[in-house]
């Protein structure tokens, strides 16, 4: 990039930057990041470099607060899940998917309402993502991005459980969309790895058969 040739590298997307150059700047070591958003920057940098290298992306740097690490990763997941939701919006309509299902065994109730109700799948998806965005940005539970209260860390688990259902619905009912998306982002793969590694979800809830395909990854992390 043009701006990189001086003595200092300015990591900026100036107006007019081409899509291929967006965020394309030399990596910055985590130690040199002095921003309060350093963890997010670091995670995004790793994903940008190689989204398929799930192991590296999920490897927590030394001296990193685990709560913040998990929190920032979950933010990133929810953000990228928007991409899946956009694809689903085109195909998954209230008429075709009247309920949030995954296989025939599971029907999920939407927790965004006062009394959980059987929202159509697309509404469930949107409500869950919107709810997660509000919760993860809530000033009450997550007022800071450099330290997370112990009581709030428990919230992460329930967010994980809910957003995982979006993967499962897509996998079982919109397989083509799921595969395209997964090929691009490795998101479900990374997510499964993430929740297993940090014990955010119980194994029996992980119904998308990704572990069998990539049996090496979860095996390692559990060992």
């Amino acid at each position: 990039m043009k701006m990189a040739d001086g003595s200092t590298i300015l990591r900026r997307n100036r107006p007019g930057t081409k899509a291929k150059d967006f965020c394309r700047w030399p990596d910055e070591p985590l130690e040199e990041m002095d921003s309060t958003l350093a963890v997010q920057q670091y995670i995004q940098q790793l994903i940008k470099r190689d989204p398929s290298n799930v192991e590296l992306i999920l490897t927590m740097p030394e001296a990193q607060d685990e709560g913040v690490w998990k929190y920032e990763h979950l933010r990133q997941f929810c953000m990228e899940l928007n991409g899946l939701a956009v694809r689903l919006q085109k195909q998954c309509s209230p008429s075709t998917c009247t309920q949030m299902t995954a296989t025939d065994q599971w029907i999920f109730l939407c927790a965004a309402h006062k009394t959980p109700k059987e929202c159509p799948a697309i509404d469930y998806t949107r409500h869950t993502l919107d709810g997660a965005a509000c919760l993860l940005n809530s000033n009450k539970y997550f007022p800071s991005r450099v330290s997370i209260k112990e009581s709030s860390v428990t919230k992460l688990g329930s967010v994980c459980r809910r957003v995982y259902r979006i993967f499962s619905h897509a996998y079982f009912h919109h397989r083509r969309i799921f595969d395209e998306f997964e090929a691009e982002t490795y998101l479900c793969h990374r997510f499964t790895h993430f929740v297993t590694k940090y014990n955010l979800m119980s194994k029996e809830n992980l119904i998308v058969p990704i572990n069998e395909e990539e049996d090496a990854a979860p095996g390692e992390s559990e060992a």
Partner: protein
Amino acid sequence: MGTNSGATAGINNKPVGGAAVLGVGVGNSAVGGGVLSNSLGGVGSGGLSISGLSAGGQNANVGSIISGNMGGSGGGNNGSDDGGNGMGGPGGGPNNQQATTPQYTIPGILHYIQHEWSRFELERSQWDVDRAELQARIAMLLGERKCLESLKSDLTRRIKMLEYALRQERAKFYRLKYGTDPPALNEFKPSASEETGLGGDVATDSEVPYSSVSNTTWRQGRQMLRQYLAEIGYTDNIIDVRSNRVRSILGLNNNADHDGGIGSSGGENLSPNINGNESNKRASESDGRHTPAKKVQQSNDAIILDTEAAVMANFEFLGPTEMSDDDEISDDLEMVATDNDDNDVKMAKRPKSGKDMLSEDLEAEVGEHLLNDMNLMAEEVDSSLGLGELAQLTVNNDSEGSYDSNTKDGTGGSAGGAGYRKTWNAKYTLRSHFDGVRSLIFHPEEPVLITASEDHTLKLWNLQKTVQAKKSASLDVEPLYTFRAHTGPVLCLGMSASGETCYSGGVDGNIECWQLPSPNIDPYDCYDPNVHSGTLEGHTDAVWGLTTMQNNIVSCSADGTVKLWAPYTKEPLLRTYTAAEAEGGPSSVDFVRNEVDHIVVAYNSAHCIIYDTETGKQVIKLEAAQEMSGNTGKYINKVVSHPTLPITITAHEDRHIRFWDNTSGTLVHSMVAHLEPVTSLAVDAHGLYLLSGSHDCSIRLWNLDNKTCVQEITAHRKKFDESIFDVAFHATKPYIASAGADGLAKVFV
């Protein structure tokens, strides 16, 4: 003519006898009197012309008594010179001439004496005029001196304040550093006065080392002091006091002028006989004689204007220092100010209702004030100091807290503005985006806004639906609706004038069209696919700029093109504008607001080009030859058009904001506006204020009239090297907003 004829009259009279000598004398003097009366009468003070008239009358009498010829000719000449006035005399002359021709004796002498007396009278009245004039001049000079004295006293007061502030700051600094208090104060006293002897600059300079020594302790100390002052009640409206102080000096000057005016008119009154035509006389005479007297002689209004201008000129050199210093220390200093200038304060308080305001606002202020400071401390990343040209900005940055709280209730707009001054405070925090907010736009009428983020979504917010955040004065707002369609970061937004539809452009190269849901929608309502009402496809690379005008939108993209669209029509793409290769890609675009069918596009070459949308032809190129000699760093991040004037405003990578004349294409004004690249601009609907955002984490509000910074607010944190992406004004409601790389948007009221 008068003298000649007088002389001939004398010659003619010579053979007549001994009395002829007398006659000649009388004739001369009569002529002389005539001349004198001419000069007086011509200049034209009423009193003088009367005396001239009387002299003329005497002339005629003398002429008529002493010699017919002489009287006739002299009188006649006088008459012609004198105009109507003189005619009365000579008119009587010829008639008397025949009747009294033979008498040359005692009455003649008597008349001569009489005439001499009248001459002396005349001279006396002239001296009176001169005296009056000199008195007027004295009065004027006295007035001027008064002016200067008050100016001087104000300056000394300022010096005292600075001294005091320096002492305080030093003491505080010492206290914070070593933990002891009183010895420090005494020790530092002499050196303080030494330094301040050098003037205001020293105070500013001496700041830099302090701040660089330990920014945090420094700031803490400052905050502590502010707290103390807040407790005593001195966090009041400093800006107002300051502006009023300026005004009070002007007021003094005006008074002085009035004094002068009264003095001079008093002087005139001393010689009432000259009152009538006085002004005429002065106009002609004084032009030659005394230049300083000029001022007094002009009409009263003119005088006031004049001196005002003069005083303003005097203040111009004070202007910058006041901006940088006074803000900064004024709240520490008000104590001194009120002690020292009781008189001035009275004057200053005159325009406003003084005490009421003070006590009313105090309570509300202290709280917000402290909060603001806390924010400042928490959010300020680093304001690197000692930046040469930017020193002033840095100082402003430090003084932000005091500025905010002190200008809060400000109604005393001092320098040429709409007369209102408002301080914006953060009220709403819009948190829900997972990544940087790239753009935001207000609904034209409702307290509703839309944000666009790098997390691929747009969100709709209703400022009336808030959640009270714990232990914070600001309110959190929850988004009402999330717009999902982009497959990459969303970069720009536009909204139709009706506020029914909005458009967004993203890295994916698409422009999405949205029908806005009701601002009272339930956030967890069912998905309505009709909200996403269309996609404008055509750009092949990231869409970076989008703006609307009536039913059209114009967009610019990293693919190098600018496109004009008419959404919701069969063929939405109306036209594509492509610049020469050398200009590079477009970075920002706006409609020229005061000219139909013109758009202004900023290019990577740091030039702006105005196109005619109908013909697609370039109308003018905005470039400044000397400014653009080196284009590096001058990259334009944002271009906006002034809503009413033919002015284009650009935000530059080199920290400048530049103003361009659309008709001539020339650079009108250029200013260093921020510590880091300026990223965003917005002009309020009336075209009076400009809002700018920068990667230095702050937004600044500018008075477009005098291009001064009215307020600075530290608003967002950095992510990588980016901080603030967008700023906006609400078109009809008092809201401003900023969008940041930290994923937040903030609304200020």
